[in-house]
Each structure stands twice: as structure tokens, then as C-alpha cells.
């Protein structure tokens, strides 16, 4: 974990309620896709945690949904503004377990760490299948980018305005050919996925956090190994940990 000041390069709306924030600064704390950063938003007390969507040696990107006062204030951040960010938080996805044909499943904002993972996997020469679900066509993000990366993309929307009508689980042609499942999305989606898959998998959780680094027990969740902190012991948990 590191605490650094980053400079905003870009803050762009990518769907009616979703933005991508690009920051430059020291990324030496970043280790794996699925980790998160904790952003100090000017005017707010608690930091706001976000999955990392991309990172390189110069900076990183997060995707955020305008879903409350903190994220609403973030939409006003401008190029050149500074942000105090804790980076390299939590445990990300384990790339070594992907096998040759991993299945990636994302719902809504959950596409952010899944995108990060896809980038690393394709970089390693592994072509994942990505099933991603959104409410409606206007909410679809990162589809083009994932296809451009070479991923096999299956898109679902709840209203059928793009791709397959329904939820990601409706589109899941789950077969034993998939070597591993990586999943991030709303709890009901992840629960449904966990009950449907044949292979082992990892699931990335979201939580309302106090600190983001294991100090306050604000984000605890029950697992098969007892109470775990989403921020410090997660946010990625194995299928074997999950109790719904």
C-alpha cells in the first residue's frame, strides 16, 4: 500500500451515470487486477474505494458510478486537480489459476476489475470469454475495448436493447470447457453465478468501507473461513469462501 498525490489527466462520462477517471502518478503500489484504490474526495471525510480498471507505470484509471454525494462531487473534478489516493489495496485476482479458457463475468460497474483482468490475461496470451450484463444499452461500457483486446464478448441487457435480453446468468452457456471463473458484480448476480458454475472461481466484492486497509472492521463479511474484511482479506474471495 502507498499513499500518494495523483494528478487528474481526464474525467470523462462514458454512460449516463458512469465516468472514467484517469490519474497520473506513482503506481509502484499496484500489484494485481482486482485490487482497489481509496480516494480522498475533497470535502468528504471518508475515502471512497474503487476497483482499478487499468494501470501502467505512469498512472491508472478507475470507473465510477455517480451514486451518491461523494461520487457526485467527483464528477466535478477537472484536469490538473490533485487527489490523495491510497493505492495497492486488497488482494486481487490470481492470474495463475486462469487456465487456458477462463470465463470472466461482469455486471454493471463490476466490469472495471474484469477489464483490468482481461488486459493482463490477454497480455499473457490467454483469450478469455467475457460475459457482461447491464441494465440497458445506454449503460453498456467497455464492450468495444474488450473486443478490440481480442476477448470473446457476450453482452446482455435486462431490457434487451443490446445483446441478449436478460441477466448474465441467462446467457451463461456454462460448460466444463471453462478452466476458471472470475466474477464481479452485484451480490444477487454473483450468488446466481456461484450456484451455476462447474469450475472453481474467484469473486470480487464491493462493500461500504471505513478505512480500506483493515483497521476498522467496517466492511466485514461472513465467509466459510469465518469473518473476513472485504478490504484487507478481499475484495477477491474464492468460491470455497462464499456463504450467501
Amino acid at each position: 500500500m502507498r499513499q500518494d498525490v495523483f494528478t487528474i489527466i481526464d474525467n470523462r462520462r462514458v454512460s449516463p451515470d458512469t465516468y472514467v477517471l484517469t490519474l497520473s502518478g506513482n503506481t509502484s503500489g499496484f500489484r494485481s487486477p482486482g485490487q482497489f484504490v481509496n480516494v480522498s474526495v475533497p470535502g468528504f471525510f471518508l475515502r471512497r474505494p474503487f476497483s482499478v480498471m487499468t494501470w501502467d507505470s505512469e498512472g491508472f484509471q478507475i470507473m465510477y458510478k455517480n451514486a451518491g454525494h461523494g461520487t457526485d462531487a467527483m464528477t466535478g473534478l477537472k484536469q490538473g486537480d490533485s487527489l490523495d489516493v491510497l493505492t495497492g489495496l486488497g488482494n486481487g485476482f490470481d492470474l495463475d489459476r486462469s487456465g487456458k479458457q477462463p470465463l470472466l463475468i461482469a455486471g454493471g460497474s463490476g466490469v472495471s476489475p474484469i477489464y483490468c483482468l482481461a488486459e493482463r490475461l490477454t497480455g499473457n496470451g490467454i483469450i478469455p470469454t467475457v460475459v457482461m450484463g447491464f441494465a440497458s444499452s445506454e449503460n453498456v461500457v467497455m464492450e468495444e475495448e474488450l473486443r478490440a483486446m481480442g476477448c470473446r464478448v457476450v453482452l446482455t441487457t435486462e431490457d434487451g436493447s443490446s445483446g441478449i435480453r436478460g441477466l448474465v446468468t441467462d446467457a451463461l452457456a456454462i460448460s466444463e470447457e471453462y478452466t476458471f471463473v472470475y466474477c464481479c458484480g452485484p451480490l444477487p448476480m454473483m450468488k446466481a453465478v456461484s450456484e451455476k458454475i462447474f469450475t472453481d472461481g474467484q469473486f470480487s466484492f464491493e462493500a461500504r468501507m471505513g478505512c480500506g486497509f483493515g483497521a476498522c472492521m467496517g466492511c466485514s463479511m461472513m465467509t466459510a473461513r469465518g469473518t473476513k474484511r472485504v478490504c484487507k482479506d478481499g475484495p477477491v474471495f474464492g468460491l470455497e469462501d462464499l456463504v450467501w
Partner: protein
Amino acid sequence: MVNTSVRLGNIELENPVIPASGTFAFGYEFADFYDINMLGAVVIKGLTRDERYGNPQPRIAECPGGMLNAIGLQNPGVEKVISEEIPKLRQCFQKPIIANVSGFSVDEYVECCEKLEQEPEVSMLEINISCPNVKHGGMSFGTDPGSASEVVRAVKRVTSKPVFIKLTPNITDITVMARACEDAGADGLTLINTLLGMRIDLNSRKPLLANKTGGYSGKGIFPVAVRMVYQVYESVKIPIIGVGGISSAEDVLEMMFAGASAVEIGAANLVSPYACRDLVRELPATMERYGIKELKSIIGEAHHG
């Protein structure tokens, strides 16, 4: 060179900065960030006799000037704290360790303290009779002087370690509780615990916390904490640990002028894992700026003259 050392009863601290219970886990987590031996002492996460999961989610909410929490005393139980957590902390921390104890009955407080008495790595006990987030989680002991006395007497009977009592601010007259604890034999007081607060989600139209109410901490409670430390300093002779919204070295001085012998840092740790380190680093220069050579000489100075 300034002298930042202070005393809490028979314990000498190199400086008055102590992370508060529940905001520093069991301490060793922070050893990844910096050498925590620079701290005066550490209060570990509050423990109870039995393991507790705590309250349902969500347990955390933002509010102006701070945050609400309703963790609900999540902890692995006193035995695991002693067998697993304290050894891990001791590996990276050689300064005083303060255990924070909550209970749902006098017997439970006693049982925890008896077990901690056998643990030489624990220098001091902080007895929490003020947790706002669990029913009977000390809160009834915290607002009734008779019940508080009973807890203090029972605990003192089974331990030779200094016993500090952590008091709630959600009370009409905190000096009544402070005197009751002193009279019952407490070696010191920690104040204040969190203010009871609530936020309501405008979208769901329901309280943001699953527990509905939560404990309010952060800068916003600092003026209340300073007032209570000031009032209690005039009412008792035992030392006070001041806590509540401290977020700068200047706040440390203000709390000590009011009457605190040391301070605990709570919510600030959640905003920055380096909060306590930064306070310790800034303290000497801040003392010099205000003409202070011996930190312990300023304790309660706002009452003089």
C-alpha cells in the same frame, strides 16, 4: 529539544499519541505502513469474552465532519486475542499494549480481565462501558453510576494492571460518572467514546446503517470532547486520556490544556493510515511553536490563573 513524554499512572509513554480502540485493528496491520514503535502505546480492538461477528452491513456512514460506525464489537474473543493477536502485535511492537474490554454483564468483564491478568504483554486495561452500538454493550453500565462502580470494583479485584474506564458522552453530566469510577478505584478515565448519531438515506428513506444509529466520530466531535475533558479534569484526580476528533498536533495540545494526560486518535486513522505517525512527527515542532518544552507540564493548564 522538547520532551514529549507523559505518564499514565505507573506507565511512562515516550509521547501521548495512542491509536484508539477499533480504529487500529490489532496494531500489526499498521506495521506494514511504518514502524509503530514510534507510538506512545496502542489500544487494541475491543474484545469480549466470546467471539462476535458484530452488526449487519452496512456499518459505516459518512457525515459532515466525520463518520458513523456501528461495528458492534466484532472480535475473535478474549482467548484468541491473547493467543493469536497479541503475539503478532508483540513481534513488531515493544511499547505498552492496552487491551480494551467490553462486556454484557459484570461477570463477563471480570472473566475477560482475569484472562488478561495472566498476559504479561498487556500493560493496561481500558474498560469500555460506553459502546453505543450493541444493546447492553456496556452502555447501561456507562450511564448509571451505580452499575459503573460495580464494574470497576469487580474488575479491580481481579487485576493488578492499571484500569482506565472509557466513558460515553451521551449523558447529562459526565462528571457524575467520572467521580463514580474514581471512587470505585479506577486508575484513570478515557473520554469520550462516540456521540450517538444517525443518517438517513434519501433514496431508500431508511437509516443508512443497518443498526439504525451509530457512533459519531471525527473532527465534528472535538469541541464536545474538549469540553468534557475540561469538566472531568475539575472533578477527579485520576489521569484522563482525551479522545474525540483529534486530527492535528495542535488538537493534541488543546486536549492536554483541557486536562488530558495522553490522547487517543480514532477516526483520523481511517482517513489516513499514517495519521498517528504524522501526529508524532509534528508534535515537537508544534510544541516549540507554542513555547512548550515539557509536554507533561501543560496538562490542565487551561484551568490555571
